[in-house]
């Protein structure tokens, strides 16, 4: 008797809260995600009352859309370069810091601040650093007699300038994760290598690097997905005077934003969102594939 009563009470508690959570998910995640698929087959113009079904028309239009092609190219290039250099630099910094400082608070603050500070103030500060007439960067390169550059205004430099800022901003986080990985490598491995007479470089190549592969893979995927979602720095740096030309730094989310909320083509923007979704899905699946393969081999 008492047992079933308890069971009933348990069930009521579970049912009540799980329903709430499920409804929240339904409303905040599942329905919007499914609607992206649905909307992408319509010509859904915010201003027009008629929203006809157009089949794959939006996707066909995307393939012919110069802006979309530029956005895909820019975003991929951005992701490739930012991820490569972020990982490279943060690994180097992590290696340099590993021996000397065991988490000194000054370093903690230096590397955590770019993670903590939101991207809008960061981007604004960099916009000022990049300013063609008064910027700090032009002043610094002026010291070694390099002529002033329009870091953001010059279409050939603007994407690179935003990449540099993003790399700077992301090193802290990646470095910390690398440090965690480095500290988890057992000291015996290094001692054994020493006994065997391995040099520093040899130890690094045959012990440190292989043991860091799982973490590097994880960071590669995380950073790539993050890079494909880039929006805020591009938005901040292209708006207003002294900004970068929109076409030179057009990235995928920026293009989605403009199609949806400047031109009000919600159906078209949904089709574009679906492409972004597929790209990110592909990257995630790649991660799973690689991890599973490694699991089998190990």
């Amino acid at each position, binding site marked *: 008797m008492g047992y079933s009563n*308890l069971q009933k*009470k*348990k*069930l*009521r*508690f*579970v049912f009540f*809260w*799980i329903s709430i*959570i*499920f409804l929240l*998910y339904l409303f*905040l*995640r*599942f*329905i*919007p995600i499914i*609607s*992206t698929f649905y*909307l992408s087959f319509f010509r859904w113009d915010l201003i027009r009352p008629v929203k006809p079904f157009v089949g794959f028309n939006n996707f066909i239009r995307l393939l012919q859309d110069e802006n979309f092609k530029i956005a895909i190219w820019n975003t991929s290039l951005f992701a490739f370069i930012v991820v490569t250099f972020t990982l490279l630099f943060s690994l180097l910094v992590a290696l340099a810091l590993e021996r000397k400082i065991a988490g000194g*608070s000054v370093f*903690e*603050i230096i590397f*955590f601040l770019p*993670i*903590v500070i*939101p991207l*809008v*103030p960061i981007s*604004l*500060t960099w*916009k*000022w650093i990049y300013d063609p*007439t*008064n910027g*700090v960067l032009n*002043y610094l390169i*002026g010291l070694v007699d390099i002529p002033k550059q329009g870091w953001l205004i010059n279409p050939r430099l603007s994407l690179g300038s935003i990449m540099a800022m993003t790399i700077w*901003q992301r090193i*802290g*986080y990646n470095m*910390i*994760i690398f440090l*965690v990985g480095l500290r988890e490598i057992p000291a015996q491995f290094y001692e054994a290598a020493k006994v065997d007479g391995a040099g520093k470089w040899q130890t690094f190549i045959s012990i440190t690097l292989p043991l860091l592969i799982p973490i590097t893979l994880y960071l590669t995927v995380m950073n790539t997905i*993050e890079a494909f*979602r880039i*929006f*805020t720095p591009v*938005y901040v740096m292209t*708006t207003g*005077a002294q900004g970068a030309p929109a076409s030179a730094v057009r990235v995928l989310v920026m293009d*989605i*934003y403009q199609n949806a909320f400047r031109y009000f083509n*919600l159906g078209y*923007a949904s089709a574009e969102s*679906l492409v*972004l979704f597929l790209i*990110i*899905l592909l990257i*995630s699946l790649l991660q799973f594939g690689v991890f599973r393969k490694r699991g089998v081999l190990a």
Partner: protein
Amino acid sequence: MISTSLKTEGEVLLYPPTFFPRVITLTNYIQIASEASFPRYLLNSILIVVASTSIAVFTSCIGGYIFAKFRFPGKNLIFILILATTMIPFQTYMVPFYLMMKNLQLIDTYLGIMLPLFVTSFGIFFIRQNSISIPDELIDAARIDGGTEWSIFLNLILRLLTAPISAIAIFTFMFGWKFFIWPLIMTNSPKKFVLELGLTTLANRNAMDYGLQMTGAVFSIIPILLTFFILRKKFVSGITMTGMKG
């Protein structure tokens, strides 16, 4: 950045730039503070982030705890569905979500800005992982003592989960504070602007006045920096613990 915010408008435009201000001036700060709107943005940000963080922490705890310690039909399916959404970034479904908000007339409301932050799959997952190790005997003992499920959750479980809860709180707080694209889409009236949004507007209106812009930037990061310095140890362990997305 802080240095520039303290410069006079004339000195900001000096070339070569000075590293430290020659004359320290608070004009920019007075202008920001008196522009009435900036304190308002700050208030909006705090309101939105604190409210949504509290709700997200709550949904993570109750969801995580139930997924860890109860058995019910459909549990695995629901859990997998919830986890699957972590792989789908907000940007991919913000367009239909905006339409939903429009139909519900939630555009330009605090509730509409906060809504996407109410649940976090990572939070549910993280609390679940941390709840599994709570001994069943402990919960059963509390049941025998006559505690209701609700009171057990409030008085026992939440107390045992303090460390992961603060990690999740920091995670969602920072995420909410940085959330930019959604408030940008959702807000029309400056009265509802969050700090980040107010800052971009300020920057666009005074594109050449870097002193004022930097002041706005400094002003906008003071709250998060204060929180960071006060809770530094927790932030550091929270970020490494959750392997957070920056």
